């Protein structure tokens, strides 16, 4: 008797927890709006499949973990791989030395083609030489517009970050901006700096740079708010990644500012915000296209000897602007995470 009463409180805790969870589940805790159920099951279009012999292609990028942009690149590559009967090996490392090791790894696996990003071309020079020597065709995507030919790459698909920045600056002139702040969410990232530099080059008004701590959203919000308070003349906030734009909109509200928000890159929440008029426009370099074309380009070369861009010119995937005028056409694909 004594013992059982002693044990009772201990046993009852997990029991209560399980019972509570079950009760919550059963007793109509389901959400009446939103959620997975309301998401339409319109999945990827069923494409035909090539009858060409199975080939293996490695895609090696400088992606940092958890970045929505690279996720879209990978989806494009996977779609092309599925269509072309290609086995895709994806790997990534933001450290250039590690990225070179991953390319070496692909060479060792005797792949039939390599697609690579050239964020730090010099570090990859020797390993690309090894791949070419081994007779493996290499194509470039995303970054490295000025280096791909020198490094002996077959083709290049992408846009230069500076070019995107310049287009962004021109667009700001068009919409009549006078004072813009360019928000860098990762201090020291070359690509992000190039975007701001490009923007500065073509934008006729005043450009300021603001560094924020991109891994901590509350901190991003506070810092943009602080900047808007510090310079109340700012009329445009330019964020460099899609997830930071809605946060910037909140900051504008907090600071009681009249600034508008525009951004680089796109995702599904952003298309909704553009439709709602919270965000003015997004410049999209179509990452899906970069991944897709790279794999498809290698397949075409292998099976038909084609050179995309004639082997002389890069194939540009951006910058493409998404604003209120064309967002409806894009939003369906953004919802699937492919734009």
């Amino acid at each position, binding site marked *: 008797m004594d013992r059982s009463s002693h044990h009772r409180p201990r046993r009852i805790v997990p029991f209560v*927890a399980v019972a*509570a*969870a079950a009760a*919550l*589940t059963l007793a109509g*805790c*389901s*959400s*009446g*709006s*939103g*959620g*997975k*159920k*309301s*998401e339409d099951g319109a999945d990827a279009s069923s494409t035909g499949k090539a009858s060409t012999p199975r080939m293996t292609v490695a895609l090696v990028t400088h992606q*940092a*973990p*958890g*970045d*929505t942009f690279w*996720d879209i690149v990978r989806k494009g590559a996977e779609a092309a791989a599925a269509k072309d009967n290609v086995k895709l090996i994806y790997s990534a490392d933001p450290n250039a030395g590690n990225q070179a090791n991953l390319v070496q790894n692909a060479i060792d696996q005797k792949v039939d083609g390599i697609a690579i990003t050239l964020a730090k071309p010099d570090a990859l020079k020797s390993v690309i030489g090894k791949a070419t020597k081994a007779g493996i065709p290499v194509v470039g995507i995303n970054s490295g517009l000025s280096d791909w030919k020198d490094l002996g790459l077959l083709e290049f698909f992408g846009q230069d970050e500076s070019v995107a920045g310049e287009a962004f600056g021109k667009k700001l002139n068009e919409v009549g901006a006078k004072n813009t702040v360019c928000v*860098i969410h990762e*201090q020291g990232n070359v690509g992000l700096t190039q975007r701001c530099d490009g923007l500065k080059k073509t934008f006729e008004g005043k450009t300021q*740079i*603001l*560094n924020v*701590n*991109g*891994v*901590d*959203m*509350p*901190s991003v*919000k*506070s*810092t943009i*708010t*602080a*900047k808007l*308070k*510090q*310079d109340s003349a700012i009329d445009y906030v330019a964020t460099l990644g899609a*997830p930071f734009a*809605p*946060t910037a909109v*909140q900051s504008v509200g*907090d*600071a*009681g500012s009249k600034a508008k928000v525009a951004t680089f890159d796109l*995702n*599904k*929440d952003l298309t*909704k915000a553009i439709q709602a008029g919270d965000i003015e426009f997004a410049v999209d370099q179509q990452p899906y296209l970069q991944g897709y074309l790279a794999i498809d380009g290698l397949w075409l070369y292998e099976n038909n000897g084609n050179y995309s861009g004639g082997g002389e010119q890069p194939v540009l995937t951006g910058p493409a602007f998404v604003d209120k005028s064309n967002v409806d056409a894009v939003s369906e694909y953004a919802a699937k*995470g492919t734009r």
Partner: protein
Amino acid sequence: MSMTRQAEPAVTPPPAPGPKETDGRTARRTPARRLLARPEVGVFLGVVVVLVFFLIAAPPMRDSSSMANILYQSSTIGIMALPVALLMIGGEVDLSAGVAVVTSALTASMLAYQLSMNVWVGVIAALAVSLAVGMFNGWFLMKTGLPSFLVTLGTFLILQGINLAVTKTVTGNVATDDISDMDGFAQAQALFASSFELGGVQVKITIVWWLVFAALAAWVLLRTKYGNWIFAVGGNKESARAVGVPVNLTKISLYMLVGFGAWFVGMHQLFSFNTVQSGEGVGQELIYIAAAVIGGCLMTGGYGSAIGPVFGAFMFGMVQQGIVYAGWNPDWFKAFLGVMLLGAVLINLWVQRTATRR
């Protein structure tokens, strides 16, 4: 009670000047010195200096809404810095605290969304997951006797990987879906991420929670038996155990407290921004530890307070935003922050030495 009193010599110096300190060790100290011996005094002096500095250097900081903004940023760091500080007083560190916040937010968001449940189901499940992560950290640590640096470094990497892989598998993307149109969202947002007006300034609710948690932590630390246990296990684990302090229970519960903090901040982020990116949170653990250290907690354990980390987090928010309010070149931000950190630690060291010198 008698047991914990015996454990006290292991704690150097005692956490608070008791009502009657006539045991010979503190008899010759002046009241000023006794005040200086408190762990939060150094950081308090530092905060005053930095505040005055920025009020002069950055005119927009004199606005009360700017202070609300700084306090908001400080509160999201501060809510986590509190349990992290208690854990440090208890002699351990937690490197998984930064990504644990994101783990919690991801759990709540994905569970509610994928099962189309009321968001509160996700919120409660996330609490269970967060407490379980803390319990695992503490249990594994006590079971193996490995340094907490190694154990929580392992958890940090595991959680980082799980955050990415599970999110990608479940949602098909590396960020979660927007849950702002789901049932229960408005209530949860009111609790975790709302704001109210005070004297014409919008004040975020996290600031209130931060101060409530701080008051609670201070009371527990200074007025309860559990508080004594924390100091005892951080001072000397073996002698604490020898006098009957439940060392395992204390340490495991401290890790679970960090789990609770991670849950709370995670919920704030979820209900404030509607979606969560799986790559966030990395590096934040060091900011929490820095706020605790600036707040006067020793890396070696057994010494510190709950009020110190409040000032520590405030210092962090103030410096981070102050540089922006001042309109300085942002490239220097991290360097400036580092100088501030070292400066604060030096002040702490100096105050402690001055106070404990006879």
